[in-house]
């Protein structure tokens, strides 16, 4: 167990690489209850989300989930979130470390509007079931109707005496589901999890969660995404709708017009040493960037990293070096993601 954003979470169960492989080949089960789950209700809930999210919200349908960034006035990223539209409310799922800050940000911008904001994090639990077998196992072993949920869509309903939500989304690069249940379920929730484990699903911890998302080229707040960085430089311009008015749009339009000074890239390094956050990236002797995340990829069996580099160098095949253990290690720029499921 390890401390993470104020929660005790398992770093691993049997081994990071093993949990990683089993998720890619079968199905892995992750407890992601630590993530913030914030509900918004009222006529102004949608408009509030429109104001704080970089992504277009007003045409989002009931049953749909969208990935978005939340930025400050300078276009710096406060968090990356998933916004889901229910019939009677909205749900924002945010990073555990940013939950209180996002709640405060929503409250601040909700002032005078007809919206109520409720933090549902501690009254619910959330698990992710990810992998090529995930959907099949869920269909066989869980009572919720999981068949036919589209990607980035969800279903919600009641089973016996409790309500559930099942999303078809994830943070691993595999197909899969994320499930919200009441935290008070206790033995019944343990029963569901037991069914999944019995079906051969591998329990997986934070370590594998990180190596999986890194292979899939997905950014992590606190590494690729911070308040010092904007969504466009982070390669997430696709979730920014510059035609609308939202907090930070002016600053982001300037970045889009001038082009970002640095861009997030993937790096494949020679050798088997791991690049850590903060490692300097060089072109010859000259520092041109910094690593944000790195690992030894279990799937590709090589050292991979994500880094911000000078925009002119953010081109596939560019030959750079990363300072590892005080020594320069050759690395080349590659397209993200490193891994794509079939």
């Amino acid at each position, binding site marked *: 167990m390890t401390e993470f954003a104020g929660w005790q979470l398992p*770093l*691993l169960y049997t*081994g*990071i*690489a093993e949990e990683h492989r089993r998720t890619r080949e079968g199905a892995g089960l992750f407890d992601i209850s630590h993530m913030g789950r914030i509900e918004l209700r009222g006529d102004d809930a949608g408009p509030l989300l429109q104001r704080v999210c970089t992504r277009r919200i007003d045409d989002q349908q009931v049953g749909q989930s969208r990935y978005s960034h939340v930025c400050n006035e300078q276009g710096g990223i406060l968090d990356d979130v998933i916004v889901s539209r229910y019939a009677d409310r909205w749900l924002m799922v945010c990073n555990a470390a940013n939950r209180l800050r996002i709640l405060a940000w929503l409250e601040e911008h909700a002032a005078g509007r007809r919206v109520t904001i409720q933090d549902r994090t501690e009254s619910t639990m959330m698990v992710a079931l990810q992998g090529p077998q995930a959907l099949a196992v869920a269909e066989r072993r869980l009572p919720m109707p999981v068949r036919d949920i589209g990607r980035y869509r969800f279903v919600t309903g009641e089973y016996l005496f409790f309500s559930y939500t099942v999303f078809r989304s994830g943070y691993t690069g595999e197909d899969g589901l994320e499930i919200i249940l009441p935290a008070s379920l206790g033995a019944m929730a343990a029963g569901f999890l037991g069914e999944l484990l019995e079906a051969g699903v591998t329990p997986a911890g934070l*370590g594998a969660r990180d*190596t999986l998302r890194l292979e899939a080229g997905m950014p992590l707040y606190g590494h690729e995404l911070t308040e010092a960085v904007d969504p466009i430089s982070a390669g997430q311009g696709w979730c920014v709708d510059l035609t609308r008015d939202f907090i930070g749009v002016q600053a982001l339009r300037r970045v889009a017009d001038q082009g970002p000074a640095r861009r997030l890239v993937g790096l494949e390094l020679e050798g*088997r*040493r*791991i690049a*850590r956050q903060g490692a300097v990236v060089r072109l010859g002797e000259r520092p041109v960037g910094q690593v944000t995340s790195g*690992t*030894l990829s279990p799937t590709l069996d090589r050292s991979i990293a994500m880094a911000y580099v000078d925009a002119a160098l953010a081109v596939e095949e560019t030959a750079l070096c990363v300072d590892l*253990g005080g020594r320069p290690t050759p690395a080349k720029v590659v397209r993200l993601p490193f891994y794509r499921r079939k």
Partner: protein
Amino acid sequence: MNTPPADRKYTTTHEWVRVDGDLVTIGITAFAAAELTDITYVELPAAGTRVQAGRPFGEIESVKATGELVSAVGGEVVEANSALAEEPGLVNSDPYGRGWMIRVRAEDLGPCDTLMDAAAYEAMLAGGR
């Protein structure tokens, strides 16, 4: 398997040290290997390199972290475990056996006198490091 063997001594930095005459074999303990989780790389000095008592002789890397390896004694490296280049995981699976790291011809065994025995090392672990 993971109990610190009684035939060697232990450092506060979680290396084990086995003395055979003036030859000293060094590795890391099962506790240290478990803390690191899957070890991906072990950097060891070549035979002939001089090491110093209390100073680092190499690095060990896992998905989770990079750590220094410290030599308890000073002297010349007689042999480094070449199997770890291909199979760094041996340190996880067999830290006291096939996961050994270097063999040093010690010029002075004095530093070994202050090392912990297995019971003292276990007590240190129980006391929360």
